[in-house]
């Protein structure tokens, strides 16, 4: 869409801007071209209006030729050629108009006088056209900067939304309500254990809230969070839940994005243990080689169980977080083997370790 033709207000302003130009053209026709005042006005005014519209055509050339100092020659040539062509057409229009006006007695002989002013008209045409080019480039620049601002604002909104989503996703309402229910059960039968669970739950929530603000944490911080989470779940599931951890000491200080493993362990509980009346295990392994840190979360699951209600939301969330942090540098692979569900993460190894 043309920025001026597509907008009535802008078109009005543009034509208003032409009023002094019309005066200038009429003046030049009189003084330089040697026409009479009336002749200058009769010829200059309609010609100016026509040309005001013709100059708008340069937008299409401007849009396709971006201003770039290294290759400015090519657009310059294109604009000059266009200016010559449009101006030439304008001269033809001026001659036709002069010939038409010459039919009236008042303008007798205008034809010949206008022919003498051809050079002036052509020169004016080229200059005015190039002025139009400059104006269009200015408009394009203004629009580009406004678009950039809008994009930036949009990106900020998206980032904020993602943050809010992440905050909400951090603490699964199921987990909170079920834990509170377990505490409620324990207050009657085992008050000491109820108190212990309150403390564990508080500890877990505090750690979660703190972690969301950081961009990277040491692996051992994440593992501490998982331990905390699983101790709460262990109260709920009792002997149904067993957890094994094989984490090499040399990876504890490796930086990882916060809350990337916790959702995987939470999934392991929600889709594994909680679907198995006889219980199940969860295993966490972490080790590194020359280039990468590999972390595996696996759990027993019931292959015949219903697909989850939360339907892999946690997994998708983790995948997106990894992509945001590492681009293509990280990998997440899900495999199943019999009744074992396994999520394998591969993260780039960081030379600089986080304080342990």
């Amino acid at each position, binding site marked *: 869409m043309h920025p001026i033709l597509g907008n009535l207000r802008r078109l009005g302003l543009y034509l208003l801007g032409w009023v002094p130009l019309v005066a200038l053209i009429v003046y030049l026709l009189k003084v330089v071209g040697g026409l009479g005042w009336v002749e200058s006005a009769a010829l200059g005014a309609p010609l100016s209006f026509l040309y005001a519209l013709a100059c708008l055509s340069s937008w299409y050339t401007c849009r396709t030729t971006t201003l770039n100092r290294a290759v400015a020659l090519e657009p310059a040539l294109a604009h000059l050629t266009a200016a010559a062509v449009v101006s030439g057409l304008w001269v033809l229009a001026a001659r036709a108009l002069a010939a038409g006006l010459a039919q009236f007695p008042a303008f007798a002989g205008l034809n010949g006088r206008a022919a003498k002013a051809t050079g002036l008209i052509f020169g004016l045409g080229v200059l005015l056209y190039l002025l139009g080019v400059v104006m269009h480039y200015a408009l394009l620049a203004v629009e580009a900067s406004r678009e950039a601002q809008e994009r930036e604002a949009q990106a900020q909104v998206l980032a904020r939304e993602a943050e809010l989503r992440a905050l909400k996703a951090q603490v699964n*309402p*199921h987990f909170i*309500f*079920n834990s*509170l*229910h*377990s*505490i*409620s*059960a*324990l207050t*009657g*039968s085992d008050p000491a254990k109820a108190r212990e669970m309150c403390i564990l739950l508080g500890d877990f929530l505090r750690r979660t809230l703190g972690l969301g603000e950081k961009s990277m944490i040491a692996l051992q911080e994440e593992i501490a969070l998982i331990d905390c989470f699983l101790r709460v779940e262990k*109260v*709920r*599931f*009792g002997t149904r839940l067993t957890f094994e951890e094989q984490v090499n000491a040399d990876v504890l200080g490796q930086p990882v994005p916060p809350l990337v493993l916790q959702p995987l362990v939470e999934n392991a509980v929600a889709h594994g243990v*909680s*679907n*198995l*009346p006889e219980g199940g295990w969860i295993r966490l392994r972490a080790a590194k080689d020359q280039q990468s840190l590999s972390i595996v979360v696996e759990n027993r699951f*019931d292959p*015949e*169980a*219903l*697909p989850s*209600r939360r*339907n892999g939301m946690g997994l998708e969330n983790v995948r997106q977080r990894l992509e945001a942090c590492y681009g293509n540098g990280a990998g997440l692979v899900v495999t199943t083997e019999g009744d074992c569900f396994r999520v394998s993460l591969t993260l780039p190894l960081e030379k600089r370790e986080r304080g342990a």
Partner: protein
Amino acid sequence: MTSERGNRYRAIVVDDEDLARQVLRELLQAHPEVEIVAECANGFEAVKAVAELKPDLLFLDVQMPKLDGFEVLELTGSDLAVIFVTAYDQYALRAFEAHAVDYLLKPFGAERLRVALDRVPERLGDNRLGGRLPPPMELAAEARPPAQYLERIVVKDGTRVHLIPVRKLDYAEAQDDYVALCAEGKKHLKQQTISSLEKALDPARFLRVHRSYIVNLERVVKIEPYGKETHVVVLTSGAQLPVSRAGYARLREVLEG
């Protein structure tokens, strides 16, 4: 409450978490009219216990291993008062609210339990008159997140419970108040209308080809003309099903894409 039973309810508590059952056990001590006749830790146990003990009242956890609360309800029928128990499930809650089904949200206390129990006589009376519980299949369908279709069908055969993954289903046939589900060469009868089954199945995978038939599109080998106006579909198993005129149009639309 009918007079011959007095004001006592025989209740079954179904929850996979020991502590959750403990809460109900403890809170129900204040209600001597409720007698817990069984506690079940999963859906299979619950179906069996309901069939054997015929309780008046069922406390039913929604999320459980093996069979979830809705599937249990499908298999036990609705001839008893049911109080659902759940921690958090926005879709299930919406369905409960819409059908005025009683439920308890974990964690709950004595007061909320009393309110739910106060409605039990009314529920039991209503059920005898035709039931205030909505058909379990419909309740389950509404409690599913939007755009999520049935992945398996539960069927009770005497005291045994079969789980039929829908990918193994060849076709379903309406038989009066029942549907016959044909999977892996066997037929399972289930009390359900074919229309409600059709609604619960993914329309991209299953198609109603006839008033009485739903077919698994993956099983269709070919469509053959049969008589002047009608057609039959031939399945991989060799079975042939009649196709109505409307069904034929739908089938062509899906298969020719």
